[in-house]
């Protein structure tokens, strides 16, 4: 069987579902009105936006008034952290009786992990430089889990927020956010989580898991790029993000990305309808790929927590190997020539020439991190594709090990 393209980089982004695309098209061509317009044409667009908002709210157990549309995961993470930080700073300026109080007395401490997406880590750095916030970056264990006890210990009187990624984008580890949410609730600290990778793949429920703020995007769930949402629990003080014509209840002004929102809503509807079927399918493919590679290649390691059949501690679509003695970009390069899309945590693939910080936080050696290969699946992958990839990888690994100096020793000595 020949393949035109085998897409196994769904952690980066996913193919839009045909039905999602179909649902969006009328909002470019026929129903292009501005939802703020008072004519009925405009109200149709507004209804479509509200319908999508309702679907997304329902999928995470939230109220529709708690969903705010953004341009994606990066913006939602920025808004969550900076929005809370600035609300805390402003609250600190005036006390309840209206008197000014000393600056710096507000809560200014954030707790997060070393394995967050860059759109959390770099915002924490920004808040340090520009607003005097301090961040504690918690370690993770070898499987990539943060210990909830460490969170408890790190909380101080100054702690405003705990922000923990749910499903990790590189190694697929899923954190126990229910326990973490409870710890935060009991300590009176706000809890934010980024569920871009885990949404529609494992349970996300803002009530059960005590989540105060939550980041979502559409393009990881077969929706369009450039659209996402931030859930803000009713009563949580967050700074308004964009000022202008008072869209999104005055919190984020700007004419709505109607077609994007409609596509996001449709993607969520489709995903939730088939969630069990899709997860089961991906688990089957993931487990088969892991088994065949582990059985047929020597000196390979699977990164992240793994138990066959499990999808609440490891994402059902994530596979991440380290092949010793070879470099990940060249492995990905040969896969690319076989029309297989993958990714790597190798230093050589990074702009800063450092191996992946997530893999390093899990205490992988440089050799293991540089030899890493990530394959992330979706509902669209087939068993034939898995068979092909599982057959192809060992051949490439052998070829690269054949030309690798690692393990082939040279001994020099002086002639004289």
């Amino acid at each position: 069987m020949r393949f035109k393209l085998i897409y196994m980089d769904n952690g980066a982004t996913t193919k839009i579902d045909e039905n999602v695309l179909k649902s969006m098209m009328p909002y470019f061509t026929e129903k292009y009105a501005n939802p703020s317009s008072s004519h009925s044409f405009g109200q149709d667009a507004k209804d479509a936006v509200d319908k999508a908002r309702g679907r997304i709210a329902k999928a995470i157990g939230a109220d529709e008034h708690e969903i705010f549309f953004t341009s994606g995961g990066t913006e939602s993470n920025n808004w969550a952290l900076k929005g809370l930080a600035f609300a805390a700073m402003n609250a600190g300026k005036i006390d309840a009786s209206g008197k000014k109080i000393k600056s710096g007395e507000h809560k200014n401490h954030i707790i997060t992990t070393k394995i967050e997406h860059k759109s959390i880590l770099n915002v924490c750095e920004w808040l340090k430089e520009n607003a005097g916030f301090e961040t504690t970056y918690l370690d993770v264990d070898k499987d990539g889990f943060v210990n909830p006890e460490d969170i408890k210990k790190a909380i101080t009187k100054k702690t405003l927020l705990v922000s923990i990624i749910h499903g990790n984008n590189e190694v697929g580890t899923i954190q126990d956010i229910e326990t973490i949410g409870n710890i935060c609730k009991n300590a009176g600290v706000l809890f934010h989580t980024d569920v871009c990778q885990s949404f529609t793949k494992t349970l996300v429920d803002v009530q059960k898991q005590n989540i105060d703020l939550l980041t979502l995007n559409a393009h990881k769930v077969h929706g369009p790029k450039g659209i996402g949402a931030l859930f803000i629990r009713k009563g949580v003080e967050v700074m308004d993000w964009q000022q202008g014509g008072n869209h999104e209840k005055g919190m984020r002004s700007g004419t709505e990305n109607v077609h994007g929102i409609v596509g996001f809503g449709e993607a969520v509807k489709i995903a939730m309808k088939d969630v069990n079927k899709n997860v089961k399918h991906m688990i089957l493919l993931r487990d088969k790929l892991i088994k065949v590679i582990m059985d047929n290649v020597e000196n390979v390691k699977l990164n992240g927590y793994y138990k066959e059949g499990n999808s609440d501690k490891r994402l059902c679509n994530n596979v991440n190997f380290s092949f010793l003695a070879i470099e990940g970009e060249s492995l990905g390069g040969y896969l690319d020539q076989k029309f297989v899309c993958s990714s790597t945590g190798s230093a050589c693939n990074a702009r800063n020439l450092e191996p992946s910080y997530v893999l390093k936080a899990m205490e992988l050696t440089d050799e293991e991190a540089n030899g890493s290969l990530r394959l992330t699946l979706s509902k669209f992958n087939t068993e034939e594709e898995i068979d092909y990839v599982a057959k192809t990888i060992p051949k490439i690994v052998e070829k690269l090990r054949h030309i690798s100096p690692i393990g082939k020793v040279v001994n020099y000595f002086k002639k004289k």
Partner: protein
Amino acid sequence: MLKYSKETLKRFSEPKFAGEMKNPDSVGEEGNMKCGDVMRIYIKVKDDIITDIKFLTYGCVAAIASTDALCETVKGKTLDEAEKLTWKDVVEGLGEVPSIKVHCSVMGIDALKDAIKKYREGIKPVINDEEECCEEMKNIGKIDQ
């Protein structure tokens, strides 16, 4: 993956000079495991002319392609000529090399220079002799950890 030129990808997919050499006259090395590239070059020398050349690499697409191009350029050249080669000479036939990959594509030259230097100093290599292997060489690629 980065955007590589057609020429680079062709070299990468079918490197002509990749592999181990039996009984080389000299071996040179460059790179470390941290940055993700380790390069080793083997040469055979007769009357100051490089008659044969091969390389092994733990490296990326750019490292494999550029070192293979280097080997083709160097074969048949005198040691003096080979020593004067610059990065530009090597990547000439490769189209554009992404700027963050310059580091990976100079490693072959540095490894070659190391091999020539060792040859001139009369340092002889013994390959695959685990028993006599000195500690330093056992740690190839583990430098800087």
